[in-house]
């Protein structure tokens, strides 16, 4: 069942006299529960596509429908409300709020929802436990390692239980063991979990071919168009072979 459908998706912007077109009439279907890796050279449109799917960038033309909702039809505020419930975003540089603790960072998206303090607490603790960082909940980002920061960022992305997680080079700033742990975590989120959380549809931008081993599909973009699609039997590489 298709969750994300792009038809003729085009994104243009001007830089001086030049018109730059990171996405050029792209057609794409992403089924629910997929783990999709997007690869391609710099400027191929990977991050732009990711941002369009996350609702933080707006296509110039074409349509982008997610779970039956045409994102172009939503106002800026409606789009924000849609993001708060449907998408979790994992950044390459984590983008945690530096003056907030790990717990407070994870709680941030929940402040928008009508939840009691106790309900928020339960969900934050659950998310932190899921990413294995509950014991560091009082730490500030500067007191955490890169891998730990990325775990907190993933906890922040999943705490509202969104359908989709978009990740922009989530291992780009991590050493190999931390990158392996983060990829394993994303892979686990893509599967049914013991705590009853629904499997997440994950779309990940990466430059590293090794990280695509964790994904179900890999799409190669070039000049804003699909260049190649690879379907792999997703598996979890052993630590010694992972990201080697």
């Amino acid at each position, binding site marked *: 069942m298709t969750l994300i459908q792009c038809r003729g998706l085009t994104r243009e912007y001007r830089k001086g006299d030049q018109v730059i077109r990171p996405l050029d009439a792209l057609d794409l279907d992403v089924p629910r529960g997929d783990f999709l890796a997007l690869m391609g050279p710099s400027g191929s449109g990977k991050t732009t596509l990711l941002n369009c799917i996350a609702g*933080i960038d707006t296509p110039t033309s074409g349509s982008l429908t997610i779970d039956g909702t045409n994102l172009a039809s939503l106002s800026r505020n409606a789009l924000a*409300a849609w993001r708060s*419930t449907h998408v979790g975003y994992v950044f390459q540089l984590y983008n945690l709020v530096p003056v907030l603790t790990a717990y407070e960072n994870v709680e*941030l998206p929940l402040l928008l929802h*009508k939840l009691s303090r106790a309900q928020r607490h339960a969900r934050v603790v659950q998310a932190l436990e899921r990413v294995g960082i509950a014991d560091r909940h009082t730490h500030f980002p500067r007191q955490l390692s890169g891998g730990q920061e990325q775990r907190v960022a993933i906890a922040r992305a999943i705490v509202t239980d969104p359908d989709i997680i978009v990740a922009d080079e989530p291992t780009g700033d991590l050493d190999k063991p931390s990158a392996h742990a983060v990829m394993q975590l994303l892979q686990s989120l893509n599967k049914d979990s013991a705590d009853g959380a629904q499997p997440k549809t994950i779309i990940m931008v990466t430059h590293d071919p090794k990280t695509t081993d964790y994904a179900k599909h890999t799409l190669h973009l070039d000049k804003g168009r699909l260049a190649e699609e690879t379907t792999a039997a997703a598996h979890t590489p052993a630590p010694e072979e992972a990201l080697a």
Partner: protein
Amino acid sequence: MNTLNCIPYILKQIARHRVRSLLTIAGIAIAMFLFTAVQAMNTGVTEATQARADDTTLIVYREDRYCPATSQLPQDYLARIQRVEGVASAVPIKVVVSNCRTSLDVVTFRGVPKDLWLEDTAGATGNNVTIIEGSAEDWLRRTDAALVGETLATRRNLKPGMTFDAAGITAYVAGIIRSDSTQDHNVAYTALEFVQLAGRDQLGIVTQFSVKVTDPALLDQVAKDIDALFATAQEPTATFTEKAFIGRVADDVIELVGFARWLGLGCLAAVLALVANAIILSVQSRIAEHAVLQTLGYSSRLVALLIIAEGIILATIGGLIGAAAALAIAHTSSLALSVEGTSIPIVASTSLLITGMLICATIGILAGLIPAYQASTRDIAACFRAA
């Protein structure tokens, strides 16, 4: 969307950017301290000089004189003034001041016929004078006894039974008075003869007459009648309403205080600049953070509100500290601007504190508007590209 949930987030932003917040708050507090002090003086000027519909007091002074040392009127004018139609009562007063110049700590002695003064203050048009410490009996019994205004007593730490020296006069404190009239707050009432004999023999000479009229509508007419009565006398008079008299005598001080209003406005401009600077710097350093908030689902309106709320909180805390400090100092030091025997109080009221905080909150909103608009309308994806 529960905006109230986000208040702790704003407070954490302020508390955990400690140095920036403290410096901003300190700057605002200093500016608001100055603003409140200027406003307290302004309020005092207004209170001392603005005519009210129920004013009934006239001051009869020597024509073309501005100083109590040179305004010398025969005490026997009293009987003729009392006979003027519309006059309810009249009290001759001999004024001696410890300092003819403008000062924050002037002691003004007002020598009055004690029985007449007590009768006058107790009447329907009196100033509602209450003896809050000591007794009238003690005052009536001793020639050197003084009833001291509450502000003067606080400033000089005077208590009943003590003696004090000022303007070459040693007086005994028989009581401390509280009065509706600001002119009573900063003076010491003594026997008329006691002040007339102090320094040099001026028995029979007074500085002014304080006249109460039966109806506020008669003020101007009675003033004209009194001046007409003495127009051809050797010592002609000039009669004014009490507020106009203060406005005339303390003209220089009032002008200075009026000019200080610009200083007050400058302080407000400084607060606006400080808060705006703090908010702009804060927003510029948090472009990516605001983009993250919007990515998490915070609407642009909510992000704008968070920024404005931060400005309001910073400005209000600084305003509260500055205004409260100014009011506390004004209240505890009991200072008053005195000139030529008249007194302009420095009015430290709670309403001034509330006004100061409301102004600060408004400034907080104004200072946050542009940065909030900019932050909330930025292209989210572009913010990440720039970061």
